[in-house]
């Protein structure tokens, strides 16, 4: 009896060792996607519907925008989710391995700045006030609300924000501090936005920023801050103000990047992207993001059909409209 067991175990060992040497067969019929966790809910929704409609298999991973581009530039994935535009060093890496890409904006996300419900003074803020709070020079010095604006109370100021790995962090620093990744070190950082929600909802002097969906789901716990936009008005983040462009500059486009070669050669990838563009408006809204207008999606679809490769972002830029992104992309490449 026991000897039999041993025999089984040793056979299993040989089998498993033997399997080590078999070469892996790439499954071509699966559409492989990876990248940002912010874009993930939209892509997940599209993939779910696409799979039901066409029975073509789709997988989506969450390696973060940067991790996604690493795989994308190795040619491992057909589509890469990105919560920020591709960076120059990533463009370079793709170029080195001969990967050409198509850049498609697919929906808006808005960074909402939120405060505690009991905070009755900071209902409106300007970008320079946000900068005063968050810039590296503020570290250890700006600790009270009355240091930001005279007239605000002598309450301790406590900051909560996403960690340095997130695209949200990149965008916030570029838009508010005007220098990518520059921020004071003494704030509570978490990669999980729900932790930030908990932090500010229990802290009268707390302030945080994160994606609109997290504010929408926690409206009973937090208040949003109206931000002064480019025309001088204080605007609260909402579906309407983001769609009409008045909530700026803290609303940002989300992207998917397509492997141009795979779009041409793999009919499944092509079908998936077409499906994505067709349903992006409906599905992005359903999962808590802000869709573009119909005309804008039409323009994006046209841009996709020309198979124009390359990025609109030769340098980091804030607050481009969809039209400007597509035009710049055509002009740059």
């Amino acid at each position: 009896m026991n000897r039999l067991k041993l025999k089984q175990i040793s056979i299993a060992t040989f089998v498993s060792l033997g399997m080590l040497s078999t070469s892996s067969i790439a499954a071509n019929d699966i559409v492989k996607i990876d990248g940002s966790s912010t874009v993930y809910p939209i892509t997940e929704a599209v993939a779910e519907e696409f799979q039901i409609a066409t029975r073509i298999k789709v997988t989506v991973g969450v390696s973060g925008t940067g991790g996604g581009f690493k795989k994308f530039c190795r040619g491992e994935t057909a589509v890469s989710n990105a919560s920020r535009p591709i960076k120059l060093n990533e463009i370079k890496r793709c170029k080195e391995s001969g990967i050409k890409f198509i850049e498609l904006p697919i929906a808006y996300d808005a960074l909402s700045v939120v405060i505690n419900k009991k905070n009755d003074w900071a209902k409106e803020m300007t970008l320079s006030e946000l900068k005063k709070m968050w810039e590296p020079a503020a570290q250890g010095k700006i600790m009270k609300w009355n240091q930001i604006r005279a007239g605000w109370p002598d309450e301790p100021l406590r900051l909560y924000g996403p960690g340095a790995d997130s695209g949200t962090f990149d965008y916030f620093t570029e838009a508010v501090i005007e220098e990518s990744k520059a921020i004071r070190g003494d704030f509570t950082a978490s990669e999980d936005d729900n932790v930030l929600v908990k932090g500010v909802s229990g802290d009268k002097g707390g302030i945080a920023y994160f994606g609109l969906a997290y504010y929408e789901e926690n409206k009973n716990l937090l208040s949003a801050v109206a931000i002064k936009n480019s025309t001088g008005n204080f605007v609260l983040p909402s579906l309407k103000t983001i769609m009409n462009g008045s909530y700026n500059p803290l609303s940002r486009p989300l992207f998917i990047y397509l492997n141009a070669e795979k779009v041409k050669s793999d009919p499944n990838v092509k079908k998936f992207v077409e499906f994505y563009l067709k349903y992006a408006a409906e599905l992005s809204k359903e999962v808590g993001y802000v869709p573009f207008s119909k005309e804008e999606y039409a323009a994006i679809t046209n841009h996709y059909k020309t198979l124009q490769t390359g990025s609109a972002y030769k340098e980091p830029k804030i607050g481009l409209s969809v039209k400007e992104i597509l035009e710049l992309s055509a002009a740059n490449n």
Partner: protein
Amino acid sequence: MVNDKKAEIENNLTRIRSLITKHKRHDHIFAGVGMFIIISLTITLLVLFLDLVFDGYPRFNLDFLTNFPSRRATAAGILSAWVGSALVLIVTFFAAVPLGIAAGVYLEEYAKKNWFSDLIEINVTNLAGVPSIIYGLLALGLFVYGFGLGQTILTAGLTLALLMLPIVIVATREAIRAIPIHIREAAYAVGATKWQVSLHHVIQYSYGGILTGVIIGMARAIGETAPVITIGALTFIAFLPPSPVGLEPPFINFEWLEAGFTVLPIQMFNWISRPQMAFHVNAAATGAIIILLTLLMNGLAIKIRYNIRKKIKW
């Protein structure tokens, strides 16, 4: 004189008595502290577990186990995640157990006690303490890109096998050491070779301890997230890998080893970081299931060890 002696004896007696009471008091204090620690640990675990159960209660139904992930929290399930976890654990089992037992038997029965086996011993013990993310990074370089195995179930299984290997080796050695030397001597006396002694006696009698180590190792592997994310596990996958058993000869196929996958902790992590509360319910339900599986596996280990120990009579 006599009274003096009597007094001295009594004096000594009271001293000794008070000493004994003092030491007994220490005994009680230690037992109390130990009890307090155990109870507070158990209560912590229980509270955490019950919290998850209460939060995840609305999702405890068959649909949750048979549905794929979805953007609608109430329709989402953990089918691809638990199948992924199960298949990865199968690979882990078949890779780690034979290697681990063989290594343990070699180190205890065959290896000469010299600086080299000391070195191996130190290394094995150290490996058990290496953070799991390090194994993930090693596997990413070695299995995924070095051997070209890709981001597959096979890679994940082998990675977790590395993680589990030291536990199995240490458990095997402990179990073997518990076997009295006269069992071996008796076998040698009737002319058994070292191989026969190991196979017919040593391994037989140490099964209980080895199995305990194996199951505890597997229980650790099932909750691992970091190394599995590092090697590229997926988050959304709404189809199952090819079935390992087929209807046509050769009936068994190994295509599933090369499939992409997700596992329970990754699915849970994804849901907990969503903004919608409904997904947090899913995460709680998944967490409760992971804890339940771990408890079941540990319970099974204790039961098996108990049964096997009862059977062995020297």
